[in-house]
Protein backbone atom coordinates (compact mmCIF):
# COMPACT_ATOMS: atom_id res chain seq x y z
CA UNK A 1 0.00 0.00 0.00
CA UNK A 2 2.72 2.40 0.95
CA UNK A 3 4.24 2.16 -2.46
CA UNK A 4 1.22 3.92 -3.87
CA UNK A 5 1.76 6.71 -1.44
CA UNK A 6 5.38 6.78 -2.44
CA UNK A 7 4.25 7.54 -5.95
CA UNK A 8 1.80 10.11 -4.74
CA UNK A 9 4.29 11.74 -2.43
CA UNK A 10 6.83 12.06 -5.18
CA UNK A 11 4.16 13.29 -7.51
CA UNK A 12 3.24 15.97 -5.05
CA UNK A 13 6.86 17.06 -4.95
CA UNK A 14 6.98 17.03 -8.73
CA UNK A 15 3.80 19.06 -8.99
CA UNK A 16 5.06 21.67 -6.58
CA UNK A 17 8.41 21.78 -8.32
CA UNK A 18 6.69 22.17 -11.65
CA UNK A 19 4.59 25.03 -10.35
CA UNK A 20 7.59 26.77 -8.94
CA UNK A 21 9.52 26.34 -12.16
CA UNK A 22 6.62 27.83 -14.07
CA UNK A 23 6.72 30.81 -11.78
CA UNK A 24 10.45 31.08 -12.02
CA UNK A 25 10.46 31.20 -15.81
CA UNK A 26 9.50 34.85 -16.03
CA UNK A 27 12.07 35.66 -13.39
CA UNK A 28 14.72 34.02 -15.53
CA UNK A 29 13.47 35.84 -18.56
CA UNK A 30 13.77 39.03 -16.66
CA UNK A 31 17.35 38.34 -15.81
CA UNK A 32 18.08 37.74 -19.46
CA UNK A 33 16.33 40.95 -20.19
CA UNK A 34 13.38 39.67 -22.15
CA UNK A 35 10.75 40.52 -19.63
CA UNK A 36 10.44 44.18 -18.92
CA UNK A 37 10.35 45.47 -15.42
CA UNK A 38 9.77 49.12 -14.90
CA UNK A 39 8.29 49.62 -11.51
CA UNK A 40 7.15 52.99 -10.37
CA UNK A 41 5.13 54.14 -7.40
CA UNK A 42 1.89 54.48 -9.29
CA UNK A 43 2.22 51.10 -10.88
CA UNK A 44 2.81 49.44 -7.58
CA UNK A 45 -0.10 51.12 -5.94
CA UNK A 46 -3.34 49.31 -5.39
CA UNK A 47 -5.78 49.27 -8.28
CA UNK A 48 -9.20 50.52 -7.51
CA UNK A 49 -10.99 51.58 -10.63
CA UNK A 50 -8.33 54.16 -11.25
CA UNK A 51 -8.96 55.95 -8.01
CA UNK A 52 -6.74 56.11 -5.04
CA UNK A 53 -7.87 53.74 -2.39
CA UNK A 54 -9.96 55.22 0.34
CA UNK A 55 -9.32 53.78 3.74
CA UNK A 56 -7.49 50.64 4.54
CA UNK A 57 -7.60 47.66 2.31
CA UNK A 58 -8.03 45.12 5.06
CA UNK A 59 -11.72 44.94 4.85
CA UNK A 60 -13.57 43.74 7.81
CA UNK A 61 -16.34 41.41 6.96
CA UNK A 62 -19.64 40.65 8.42
CA UNK A 63 -19.94 37.92 10.98
CA UNK A 64 -22.47 36.17 8.84
CA UNK A 65 -19.71 34.36 7.04
CA UNK A 66 -18.88 32.65 10.27
CA UNK A 67 -22.15 30.76 10.49
CA UNK A 68 -21.63 29.13 7.15
CA UNK A 69 -18.16 28.08 8.14
CA UNK A 70 -19.55 26.81 11.38
CA UNK A 71 -22.19 24.66 9.75
CA UNK A 72 -19.61 23.53 7.28
CA UNK A 73 -17.23 22.36 9.94
CA UNK A 74 -19.90 20.37 11.71
CA UNK A 75 -21.11 18.72 8.55
CA UNK A 76 -17.58 18.10 7.38
CA UNK A 77 -16.94 16.13 10.52
CA UNK A 78 -20.13 14.23 9.85
CA UNK A 79 -18.83 13.36 6.41
CA UNK A 80 -15.80 11.79 8.02
CA UNK A 81 -18.09 9.18 9.49
CA UNK A 82 -20.24 8.83 6.44
CA UNK A 83 -17.50 7.81 4.05
CA UNK A 84 -16.35 4.60 5.75
CA UNK A 85 -19.95 3.82 6.39
CA UNK A 86 -20.88 4.33 2.75
CA UNK A 87 -18.04 2.13 1.60
CA UNK A 88 -19.03 -0.73 3.88
CA UNK A 89 -22.76 -0.39 4.17
CA UNK A 90 -23.47 -3.73 2.52
CA UNK A 91 -21.62 -5.54 5.25
CA UNK A 92 -22.77 -3.32 8.09
CA UNK A 93 -26.39 -3.94 7.34
CA UNK A 94 -29.37 -2.22 8.82
CA UNK A 95 -27.66 -1.75 12.11
CA UNK A 96 -25.06 0.47 10.52
CA UNK A 97 -27.73 2.32 8.63
CA UNK A 98 -29.63 3.02 11.79
CA UNK A 99 -26.52 4.11 13.62
CA UNK A 100 -25.62 6.64 10.99
CA UNK A 101 -29.21 7.75 10.63
CA UNK A 102 -29.28 8.64 14.26
CA UNK A 103 -25.93 10.33 13.94
CA UNK A 104 -27.03 12.41 11.01
CA UNK A 105 -30.34 13.16 12.61
CA UNK A 106 -28.68 14.72 15.62
CA UNK A 107 -26.45 16.88 13.47
CA UNK A 108 -29.39 17.84 11.30
CA UNK A 109 -31.14 19.08 14.38
CA UNK A 110 -28.35 21.59 14.66
CA UNK A 111 -28.80 22.46 11.01
CA UNK A 112 -32.50 22.99 11.48
CA UNK A 113 -31.78 25.11 14.51
CA UNK A 114 -29.51 27.27 12.43
CA UNK A 115 -32.17 27.50 9.76
CA UNK A 116 -34.82 28.44 12.26
CA UNK A 117 -32.59 31.06 13.78
CA UNK A 118 -32.16 32.44 10.29
CA UNK A 119 -28.43 32.47 10.41
CA UNK A 120 -28.32 30.75 7.03
CA UNK A 121 -29.65 33.86 5.43
CA UNK A 122 -28.30 37.16 4.36
CA UNK A 123 -30.50 39.83 5.58
Amino acid at each position, binding site marked *: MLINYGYIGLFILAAIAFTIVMLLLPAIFRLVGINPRKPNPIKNATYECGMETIGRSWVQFNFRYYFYALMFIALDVMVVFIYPWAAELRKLGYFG*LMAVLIFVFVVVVGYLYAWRKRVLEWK
Partner: protein
Amino acid sequence: MMIFNPDPSSVRQMPTLAPDWPGGFWWHWLLFTVIIIAFVLLLVMGYIWLERRAMGRMQARLGPNRAGPFGLLQPVADALKVMLKEDIVPVNADKIVHLLAPIIAFAPVLIIFAVVPFANGALLADLNIGIVFVVAISSISTLGVFMAGWGSSNKYSLLGAMRNVASVVSYEIPVVLSIAGVVLITGSLSMNQIVLAQEIPFILLQPLGFLIFFIGGCAEINRSPFDLLEADSEIVAGFHTEYSGMKFAMFYLVEYAEALVISALITTLFLGGWRGPILPPWLWFLVKVMVVFFVMVWTRTTLPRVRIDQLMALAWKFLFPLALLNLFITGIEILAWPTAIAWLIPVNIAVMVILVLLWSKLFKLGWGRVEV
Protein backbone atom coordinates in the same frame (compact mmCIF):
# COMPACT_ATOMS: atom_id res chain seq x y z
CA MET B 1 22.43 6.95 21.36
CA MET B 2 19.64 4.92 22.56
CA ILE B 3 16.96 6.66 20.69
CA PHE B 4 18.04 5.60 17.31
CA ASN B 5 18.95 2.13 18.23
CA PRO B 6 15.60 0.54 18.54
CA ASP B 7 14.82 -2.76 19.99
CA PRO B 8 15.34 -5.42 17.33
CA SER B 9 11.84 -6.69 17.89
CA SER B 10 10.47 -3.40 16.71
CA VAL B 11 12.17 -3.77 13.37
CA ARG B 12 9.35 -5.17 11.41
CA GLN B 13 8.51 -5.75 7.90
CA MET B 14 8.15 -2.31 6.58
CA PRO B 15 6.73 -2.46 3.10
CA THR B 16 9.62 -1.46 0.95
CA LEU B 17 9.28 0.76 -2.00
CA ALA B 18 10.15 -2.05 -4.32
CA PRO B 19 9.39 -1.98 -8.04
CA ASP B 20 6.08 -3.53 -8.84
CA TRP B 21 5.97 -2.44 -12.38
CA PRO B 22 8.29 -3.46 -15.18
CA GLY B 23 11.00 -0.90 -15.31
CA GLY B 24 11.03 -0.24 -11.62
CA PHE B 25 9.65 2.27 -9.27
CA TRP B 26 11.44 5.33 -10.55
CA TRP B 27 10.66 4.73 -14.15
CA HIS B 28 7.05 4.17 -13.41
CA TRP B 29 6.92 7.32 -11.43
CA LEU B 30 8.84 9.44 -13.89
CA LEU B 31 6.93 8.23 -16.89
CA PHE B 32 3.51 8.81 -15.47
CA THR B 33 4.34 12.02 -13.72
CA VAL B 34 5.47 13.46 -16.99
CA ILE B 35 2.50 12.03 -18.81
CA ILE B 36 0.02 13.36 -16.31
CA ILE B 37 1.47 16.84 -16.17
CA ALA B 38 1.72 17.06 -19.93
CA PHE B 39 -1.75 15.66 -20.32
CA VAL B 40 -3.25 18.10 -17.90
CA LEU B 41 -1.54 21.06 -19.48
CA LEU B 42 -2.54 20.02 -22.97
CA LEU B 43 -6.07 19.34 -21.93
CA VAL B 44 -6.33 22.66 -20.18
CA MET B 45 -5.17 24.40 -23.30
CA GLY B 46 -7.67 22.39 -25.26
CA TYR B 47 -10.30 23.52 -22.82
CA ILE B 48 -9.45 27.14 -23.25
CA TRP B 49 -9.62 26.75 -26.96
CA LEU B 50 -12.83 24.79 -26.85
CA GLU B 51 -14.48 27.27 -24.59
CA ARG B 52 -13.60 30.24 -26.71
CA ARG B 53 -14.59 28.57 -29.92
CA ALA B 54 -17.80 27.04 -28.65
CA MET B 55 -18.79 30.21 -26.93
CA GLY B 56 -18.05 32.09 -30.12
CA ARG B 57 -20.29 29.84 -32.13
CA MET B 58 -23.08 30.11 -29.62
CA GLN B 59 -22.84 33.84 -29.84
CA ALA B 60 -23.04 33.76 -33.61
CA ARG B 61 -19.42 34.62 -34.13
CA LEU B 62 -16.30 32.72 -34.93
CA GLY B 63 -13.95 32.79 -32.01
CA PRO B 64 -10.17 32.77 -32.28
CA ASN B 65 -9.07 31.54 -35.66
CA ARG B 66 -5.92 33.41 -36.52
CA ALA B 67 -3.26 31.85 -34.32
CA GLY B 68 -2.58 28.54 -35.94
CA PRO B 69 -5.11 26.42 -37.80
CA PHE B 70 -8.59 27.02 -36.36
CA GLY B 71 -6.95 29.15 -33.74
CA LEU B 72 -5.62 26.02 -32.09
CA LEU B 73 -2.45 27.79 -31.08
CA GLN B 74 -4.36 30.56 -29.38
CA PRO B 75 -3.79 29.21 -25.86
CA VAL B 76 -0.11 28.80 -26.68
CA ALA B 77 0.14 32.39 -27.75
CA ASP B 78 -1.68 33.49 -24.63
CA ALA B 79 0.58 31.42 -22.43
CA LEU B 80 3.73 32.74 -24.06
CA LYS B 81 2.59 36.29 -23.96
CA VAL B 82 1.56 36.12 -20.37
CA MET B 83 4.92 34.69 -19.53
CA LEU B 84 6.55 37.69 -21.14
CA LYS B 85 4.53 40.22 -19.23
CA GLU B 86 5.89 42.28 -16.45
CA ASP B 87 5.31 41.00 -12.99
CA ILE B 88 3.83 43.55 -10.65
CA VAL B 89 3.78 43.19 -6.92
CA PRO B 90 1.88 46.00 -5.25
CA VAL B 91 3.73 47.71 -2.46
CA ASN B 92 0.97 47.20 0.01
CA ALA B 93 0.80 43.51 -0.67
CA ASP B 94 1.94 40.85 1.70
CA LYS B 95 4.70 39.82 -0.66
CA ILE B 96 5.32 36.30 0.52
CA VAL B 97 1.66 35.41 0.57
CA HIS B 98 1.25 37.09 -2.79
CA LEU B 99 3.96 34.89 -4.21
CA LEU B 100 2.87 31.67 -2.57
CA ALA B 101 -0.78 31.98 -3.49
CA PRO B 102 -0.52 30.83 -7.11
CA ILE B 103 1.56 27.85 -6.07
CA ILE B 104 -0.86 26.79 -3.42
CA ALA B 105 -3.76 27.25 -5.76
CA PHE B 106 -2.23 25.38 -8.66
CA ALA B 107 -0.27 22.49 -7.18
CA PRO B 108 -3.25 20.74 -5.53
CA VAL B 109 -5.22 20.79 -8.74
CA LEU B 110 -2.35 19.06 -10.44
CA ILE B 111 -1.98 16.58 -7.62
CA ILE B 112 -5.56 15.45 -7.90
CA PHE B 113 -4.87 14.01 -11.31
CA ALA B 114 -2.47 11.54 -9.79
CA VAL B 115 -5.39 9.36 -8.82
CA VAL B 116 -7.77 9.94 -11.69
CA PRO B 117 -8.11 6.78 -13.74
CA PHE B 118 -7.47 7.75 -17.30
CA ALA B 119 -7.62 4.09 -18.27
CA ASN B 120 -8.08 0.81 -16.50
CA GLY B 121 -6.06 1.09 -13.34
CA ALA B 122 -5.14 4.60 -12.44
CA LEU B 123 -1.95 5.55 -14.12
CA LEU B 124 0.22 6.55 -11.27
CA ALA B 125 -1.32 4.99 -8.24
CA ASP B 126 -4.68 3.54 -7.41
CA LEU B 127 -5.30 4.70 -3.90
CA ASN B 128 -7.92 2.77 -2.02
CA ILE B 129 -9.17 6.02 -0.56
CA GLY B 130 -8.96 7.71 -3.96
CA ILE B 131 -12.11 9.75 -3.81
CA VAL B 132 -11.52 10.99 -0.28
CA PHE B 133 -8.05 11.97 -1.35
CA VAL B 134 -9.50 14.02 -4.18
CA VAL B 135 -11.98 15.73 -1.93
CA ALA B 136 -9.35 16.46 0.67
CA ILE B 137 -6.73 17.78 -1.71
CA SER B 138 -9.17 19.95 -3.58
CA SER B 139 -9.96 21.80 -0.38
CA ILE B 140 -6.40 23.12 -0.29
CA SER B 141 -6.92 25.11 -3.46
CA THR B 142 -9.38 27.35 -1.68
CA LEU B 143 -6.62 28.42 0.58
CA GLY B 144 -4.56 29.54 -2.40
CA VAL B 145 -7.39 31.69 -3.64
CA PHE B 146 -7.87 33.14 -0.23
CA MET B 147 -4.20 33.91 0.08
CA ALA B 148 -4.32 35.65 -3.26
CA GLY B 149 -7.16 37.83 -2.13
CA TRP B 150 -5.54 38.57 1.16
CA GLY B 151 -2.04 39.05 -0.08
CA SER B 152 -3.04 41.56 -2.73
CA SER B 153 -4.33 43.99 -0.19
CA ASN B 154 -7.00 45.12 -2.57
CA LYS B 155 -10.63 45.52 -1.70
CA TYR B 156 -11.97 43.81 -4.75
CA SER B 157 -9.57 40.94 -4.22
CA LEU B 158 -10.63 40.49 -0.67
CA LEU B 159 -14.28 40.58 -1.60
CA GLY B 160 -13.62 37.98 -4.26
CA ALA B 161 -11.68 35.81 -1.86
CA MET B 162 -14.43 36.00 0.72
CA ARG B 163 -16.96 35.02 -1.88
CA ASN B 164 -14.81 32.10 -2.82
CA VAL B 165 -14.59 30.90 0.74
CA ALA B 166 -18.30 31.31 1.18
CA SER B 167 -19.12 29.30 -1.92
CA VAL B 168 -16.64 26.54 -1.21
CA VAL B 169 -17.79 26.27 2.36
CA SER B 170 -21.37 25.91 1.20
CA TYR B 171 -20.96 23.57 -1.70
CA GLU B 172 -18.40 21.20 -0.33
CA ILE B 173 -21.00 19.39 1.75
CA PRO B 174 -23.61 18.66 -0.94
CA VAL B 175 -20.86 17.61 -3.32
CA VAL B 176 -19.27 15.30 -0.83
CA LEU B 177 -22.61 13.79 0.11
CA SER B 178 -23.50 13.16 -3.49
CA ILE B 179 -20.18 11.40 -3.94
CA ALA B 180 -21.04 9.29 -0.92
CA GLY B 181 -24.12 8.11 -2.80
CA VAL B 182 -21.87 6.71 -5.49
CA VAL B 183 -19.62 5.18 -2.91
CA LEU B 184 -22.63 3.45 -1.41
CA ILE B 185 -23.29 1.62 -4.63
CA THR B 186 -19.71 0.70 -5.36
CA GLY B 187 -18.72 -0.09 -1.83
CA SER B 188 -15.24 1.19 -2.45
CA LEU B 189 -13.44 4.48 -2.25
CA SER B 190 -10.99 3.66 -5.00
CA MET B 191 -11.54 5.62 -8.18
CA ASN B 192 -10.78 2.68 -10.36
CA GLN B 193 -13.15 0.45 -8.44
CA ILE B 194 -15.84 3.01 -8.95
CA VAL B 195 -15.32 2.86 -12.69
CA LEU B 196 -15.19 -0.90 -12.67
CA ALA B 197 -18.46 -1.08 -10.80
CA GLN B 198 -20.27 0.94 -13.42
CA GLU B 199 -21.92 -1.64 -15.57
CA ILE B 200 -24.55 1.00 -15.88
CA PRO B 201 -23.29 4.55 -15.72
CA PHE B 202 -24.20 5.91 -12.34
CA ILE B 203 -25.83 8.92 -13.88
CA LEU B 204 -28.81 6.62 -14.30
CA LEU B 205 -28.61 5.09 -10.88
CA GLN B 206 -27.86 8.32 -9.11
CA PRO B 207 -29.58 10.98 -11.18
CA LEU B 208 -30.14 13.21 -8.21
CA GLY B 209 -26.60 12.73 -7.05
CA PHE B 210 -25.40 13.68 -10.47
CA LEU B 211 -27.50 16.81 -10.51
CA ILE B 212 -26.22 17.86 -7.13
CA PHE B 213 -22.67 17.08 -8.00
CA PHE B 214 -22.86 18.99 -11.23
CA ILE B 215 -24.36 22.08 -9.69
CA GLY B 216 -22.19 21.88 -6.62
CA GLY B 217 -19.07 21.17 -8.63
CA CYS B 218 -19.70 24.13 -10.89
CA ALA B 219 -20.29 26.28 -7.87
CA GLU B 220 -17.20 25.13 -6.09
CA ILE B 221 -14.96 25.92 -8.98
CA ASN B 222 -16.93 29.08 -9.62
CA ARG B 223 -18.03 28.37 -13.11
CA SER B 224 -21.03 29.38 -15.15
CA PRO B 225 -23.80 30.83 -13.07
CA PHE B 226 -21.68 30.81 -9.97
CA ASP B 227 -18.68 32.79 -11.10
CA LEU B 228 -19.16 35.40 -8.44
CA LEU B 229 -15.69 35.58 -7.20
CA GLU B 230 -14.33 37.12 -10.32
CA ALA B 231 -17.49 38.63 -11.55
CA ASP B 232 -16.29 41.16 -14.06
CA SER B 233 -19.30 43.30 -13.75
CA GLU B 234 -19.15 43.52 -9.99
CA ILE B 235 -15.77 43.31 -8.44
CA VAL B 236 -13.44 43.87 -11.38
CA ALA B 237 -11.38 40.72 -11.60
CA GLY B 238 -11.98 39.39 -8.14
CA PHE B 239 -9.19 37.83 -6.23
CA HIS B 240 -6.64 38.11 -9.00
CA THR B 241 -7.17 41.78 -9.69
CA GLU B 242 -3.63 42.57 -8.65
CA TYR B 243 -1.95 39.69 -10.39
CA SER B 244 -0.16 40.08 -13.66
CA GLY B 245 2.09 38.01 -15.80
CA MET B 246 2.78 34.42 -14.98
CA LYS B 247 1.15 34.53 -11.60
CA PHE B 248 -2.08 35.59 -13.18
CA ALA B 249 -1.64 32.85 -15.74
CA MET B 250 -1.46 30.40 -12.88
CA PHE B 251 -4.87 31.44 -11.67
CA TYR B 252 -6.18 31.35 -15.18
CA LEU B 253 -4.86 27.83 -15.47
CA VAL B 254 -6.31 26.89 -12.12
CA GLU B 255 -9.71 27.99 -13.30
CA TYR B 256 -9.63 25.63 -16.23
CA ALA B 257 -7.74 22.88 -14.49
CA GLU B 258 -10.43 22.87 -11.84
CA ALA B 259 -13.03 22.62 -14.53
CA LEU B 260 -11.03 19.70 -15.82
CA VAL B 261 -11.04 18.12 -12.39
CA ILE B 262 -14.75 18.45 -12.09
CA SER B 263 -15.38 17.07 -15.54
CA ALA B 264 -12.96 14.23 -14.89
CA LEU B 265 -14.72 13.47 -11.63
CA ILE B 266 -18.13 13.58 -13.25
CA THR B 267 -16.85 11.27 -15.93
CA THR B 268 -15.40 8.88 -13.42
CA LEU B 269 -18.18 8.91 -10.92
CA PHE B 270 -21.24 9.15 -13.08
CA LEU B 271 -20.45 8.52 -16.71
CA GLY B 272 -18.55 5.28 -16.50
CA GLY B 273 -15.07 6.74 -16.69
CA TRP B 274 -12.92 5.16 -19.34
CA ARG B 275 -15.42 2.44 -20.10
CA GLY B 276 -16.95 2.24 -23.49
CA PRO B 277 -17.03 0.08 -26.57
CA ILE B 278 -14.64 0.09 -29.52
CA LEU B 279 -12.54 3.13 -28.77
CA PRO B 280 -9.51 2.82 -26.50
CA PRO B 281 -10.21 3.69 -22.86
CA TRP B 282 -8.25 6.92 -22.72
CA LEU B 283 -10.07 8.20 -25.76
CA TRP B 284 -13.39 7.44 -24.16
CA PHE B 285 -12.27 9.26 -21.12
CA LEU B 286 -11.24 12.24 -23.19
CA VAL B 287 -14.48 12.32 -25.12
CA LYS B 288 -16.59 12.16 -22.00
CA VAL B 289 -14.56 14.84 -20.30
CA MET B 290 -14.96 17.09 -23.28
CA VAL B 291 -18.69 16.53 -23.43
CA VAL B 292 -19.02 17.43 -19.77
CA PHE B 293 -16.94 20.50 -20.30
CA PHE B 294 -19.03 21.49 -23.25
CA VAL B 295 -22.11 21.40 -21.06
CA MET B 296 -20.33 23.70 -18.65
CA VAL B 297 -19.50 26.12 -21.42
CA TRP B 298 -23.01 25.94 -22.64
CA THR B 299 -24.52 26.85 -19.32
CA ARG B 300 -21.95 29.55 -18.90
CA THR B 301 -23.00 31.14 -22.16
CA THR B 302 -26.64 31.06 -21.30
CA LEU B 303 -27.21 31.66 -17.66
CA PRO B 304 -27.00 34.85 -15.66
CA ARG B 305 -25.01 34.93 -12.51
CA VAL B 306 -26.63 34.29 -9.15
CA ARG B 307 -26.18 36.54 -6.20
CA ILE B 308 -24.16 35.53 -3.22
CA ASP B 309 -27.10 35.00 -0.90
CA GLN B 310 -28.89 32.98 -3.54
CA LEU B 311 -25.77 30.97 -4.02
CA MET B 312 -25.69 30.15 -0.35
CA ALA B 313 -29.41 29.52 -0.10
CA LEU B 314 -29.25 27.13 -3.02
CA ALA B 315 -26.53 25.15 -1.32
CA TRP B 316 -27.92 25.10 2.18
CA LYS B 317 -31.59 24.96 1.60
CA PHE B 318 -31.90 23.09 -1.61
CA LEU B 319 -28.92 20.93 -2.37
CA PHE B 320 -27.93 19.86 1.10
CA PRO B 321 -31.29 18.41 2.21
CA LEU B 322 -31.69 16.73 -1.15
CA ALA B 323 -28.21 15.28 -0.93
CA LEU B 324 -28.94 13.84 2.50
CA LEU B 325 -32.23 12.37 1.35
CA ASN B 326 -30.57 10.95 -1.70
CA LEU B 327 -27.89 9.38 0.43
CA PHE B 328 -30.30 7.59 2.70
CA ILE B 329 -32.67 6.54 -0.02
CA THR B 330 -29.72 5.00 -1.81
CA GLY B 331 -28.60 3.36 1.39
CA ILE B 332 -31.97 1.73 1.91
CA GLU B 333 -32.07 0.61 -1.70
CA ILE B 334 -28.65 -0.92 -1.39
CA LEU B 335 -29.59 -2.83 1.69
CA ALA B 336 -32.95 -3.96 0.42
CA TRP B 337 -31.83 -5.04 -3.02
CA PRO B 338 -28.10 -5.60 -2.88
CA THR B 339 -27.92 -7.09 -6.36
CA ALA B 340 -30.87 -6.17 -8.52
CA ILE B 341 -29.79 -2.83 -9.71
CA ALA B 342 -31.07 -2.29 -13.23
CA TRP B 343 -34.69 -1.84 -12.41
CA LEU B 344 -33.80 0.84 -9.90
CA ILE B 345 -33.07 3.18 -12.76
CA PRO B 346 -36.64 4.29 -13.42
CA VAL B 347 -37.32 4.29 -9.70
CA ASN B 348 -34.40 6.55 -9.01
CA ILE B 349 -35.24 8.89 -11.82
CA ALA B 350 -38.78 9.10 -10.53
CA VAL B 351 -37.46 9.74 -7.06
CA MET B 352 -35.30 12.54 -8.38
CA VAL B 353 -38.13 14.18 -10.25
CA ILE B 354 -40.47 13.94 -7.30
CA LEU B 355 -37.93 15.22 -4.83
CA VAL B 356 -36.85 18.11 -6.98
CA LEU B 357 -40.40 19.13 -7.77
CA LEU B 358 -41.46 18.79 -4.19
CA TRP B 359 -38.56 20.72 -2.92
CA SER B 360 -39.00 23.43 -5.51
CA LYS B 361 -42.58 23.72 -4.40
CA LEU B 362 -41.56 24.05 -0.77
CA PHE B 363 -38.95 26.47 -1.78
CA LYS B 364 -41.50 28.56 -3.57
CA LEU B 365 -43.97 28.51 -0.73
CA GLY B 366 -41.36 29.86 1.55
CA TRP B 367 -41.66 26.98 3.92
CA GLY B 368 -39.41 27.65 6.85
CA ARG B 369 -38.72 31.08 5.47
CA VAL B 370 -36.73 29.74 2.59
CA GLU B 371 -37.28 32.60 0.30
CA VAL B 372 -34.39 34.91 -0.09
